[in-house]
């Protein structure tokens, strides 16, 4: 499964969000998209998953322009989980997980053994089997996020696109989620494109970090190559010390000063 963005350009009224951005996702890898607020991470993820159409440039899925694919055909190959998904009241975890089967089912066709197996597997992978009959509204934030991921997993796609899945979660749930993402990559061989706010989290799990700044790619490579004091100063407007994660050897940044006047920073 190849996904390639070519010269994407996207703007709202007069604010440029993506500026001549090209990127090729490498199958089998975890690619982390990072960058300051408003750098275009989420917009890029939406463009890569056909949810949003750029004003110019194109995304190629298996070499064909993604807009020429049907929404259903795309959804059989990649599953997007947006940042704050919403569900109506009274929906159970199993029902929600079943929604991921939509691209594989036809009208009037009930859920078949394949669908049930896929939902069971997704619930198992996310540790939600014992919560399957619980209402979404009765769950904790971490459990609810896992239920949404179960929905994306039951879609059984090669590619998973996650938009800041750890925001609003407490520390234990964040770690748990990162472990799940790694497992999906290592054990299931899924290609993962993930937008993350936390640079250290991204450096820990990603094969490749893509740093966005003002709609363009500011740095792209292995975490050890990308996480440098210069990059952090230039893109994020912080002075920081860099140390090595004692467990993994991946870079950890410890910011100690910020420039509030940076042109690309939010106040």
């Amino acid at each position, binding site marked *: 499964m190849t996904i390639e963005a070519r010269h994407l350009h996207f703007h709202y009224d007069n604010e440029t969000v993506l500026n001549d951005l090209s990127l090729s996702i490498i199958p089998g890898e975890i690619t982390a998209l990072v960058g300051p607020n408003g750098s275009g991470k989420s917009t890029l993820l939406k463009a890569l998953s056909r949810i949003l159409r750029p004003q110019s440039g194109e995304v190629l899925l298996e070499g064909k322009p993604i807009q020429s694919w049907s929404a259903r055909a795309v959804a059989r190959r990649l599953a997007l989980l947006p940042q704050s998904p919403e569900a109506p*009241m009274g929906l159970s975890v199993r029902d929600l997980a079943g929604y991921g089967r*939509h691209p594989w089912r036809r009208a009037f066709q009930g859920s078949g053994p394949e669908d049930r197996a896929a939902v069971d597997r997704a619930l198992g992978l996310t540790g939600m089997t014992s919560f399957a009959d619980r*209402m979404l509204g009765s769950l904790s934030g971490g459990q609810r996020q896992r239920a949404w991921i179960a929905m994306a997993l039951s879609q059984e796609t090669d590619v998973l696109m996650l938009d800041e899945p750890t925001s609003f979660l407490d520390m234990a749930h964040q770690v748990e989620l990162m472990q799940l993402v790694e497992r999906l990559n290592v054990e299931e061989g899924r290609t993962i494109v993930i937008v993350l706010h936390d640079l250290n989290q991204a450096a820990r799990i990603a094969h490749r970090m893509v740093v966005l700044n003002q709609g363009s790619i500011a740095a792209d490579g292995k975490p050890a190559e990308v996480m440098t004091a210069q990059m952090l100063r230039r893109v994020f407007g912080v002075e920081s010390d860099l140390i090595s994660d004692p467990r993994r050897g991946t870079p950890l940044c410890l910011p100690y000063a910020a420039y509030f006047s940076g042109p690309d920073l939010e106040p």
Partner: protein
Amino acid sequence: MTKTMKTASPILIVGLVFLALATLSLGTGSMNIDPPALFSALLGTSDPGTSLIVWSIRLPRLVLAALAGASLALAGAVLQGITRNGLADPGILGLTAGAGLAVTGLIWLQSHGIAVEPHWRPAAAFAGAAFAALVTAVAAQRDGAIAPVRLLLAGIGMNALIGAATLVIAMGLDQQLYSAAVVWLSGSLSGAGWSASTTLAPWLAILALALAAQTRRLDLLSLDDETAAGRGLAVDRCRLRVAAIAVGLAGAGVAFSGGIGFVGLVAPHMARLMVGPKHAVALPLAALCGAAVTVAADLIGRTVFAPLELPAGIVASALGAPWFIWLMWNGKDKKG
């Protein structure tokens, strides 16, 4: 709500309630008929007088109430699903008002010597509802997409506008035609014959079948747009298609009985409280609830103040409005 009940039992329970209401409705009136006599009248083995009352007065009225209630409930359920707002219904979105304006316009033509047979009223009501829907949708759209919140706001605006126009036209009518308009606007089943039901039934059947093919898409539409699109749904196109079905259902629902309010709002809530939000089970149950509520409203309207008769729409509003306020007050449309 702790846990959704199994699906079969709520349908059975509401079905039994509907049958009880139907029996009561067929048996109650200027001449009361007990269930055994009713049964033999239905089988055609009773005296001609009782048979006549049941077969040509009460049964057609009951059937029309049930069909109109079911249509409005289905329309309301779909509109609440696609706007993701539990306060949406054919009334709020201006569809009922559009139908009312068209029918009042027809009556106004009559007062100016252009005789239009009353049997054109259903067609006019349907066209009025569709036209109001179109204008609301155009007012709500931006860049070809319709955001649910804007649709709701546009509907509220349309309602005020159409209501004012209807009032202006109605004020120009003489006493007799004015009452005819008011009776229609308040949603009355009085004097309903079989022809209304035989016209409405095929419409309802076709639209309900079209809706049955969309239940899973409706489920996805009640999530946010991006999540729905991520599951492979062509969101805008799909929303337009089911909205068109809902407009058809709303138009059919008010075409013969006039603007029966609040059934489209209340019935879908009753269904979701019993079986949860999945449309494959919530839609049929909502239709059944809508039928039961409308039959109950009509029964109350024609018995409580007998021999005076209150239009079913007035009773439904009197019972439905407090529910509406309670819904807003309790914030029952919150997301889970």
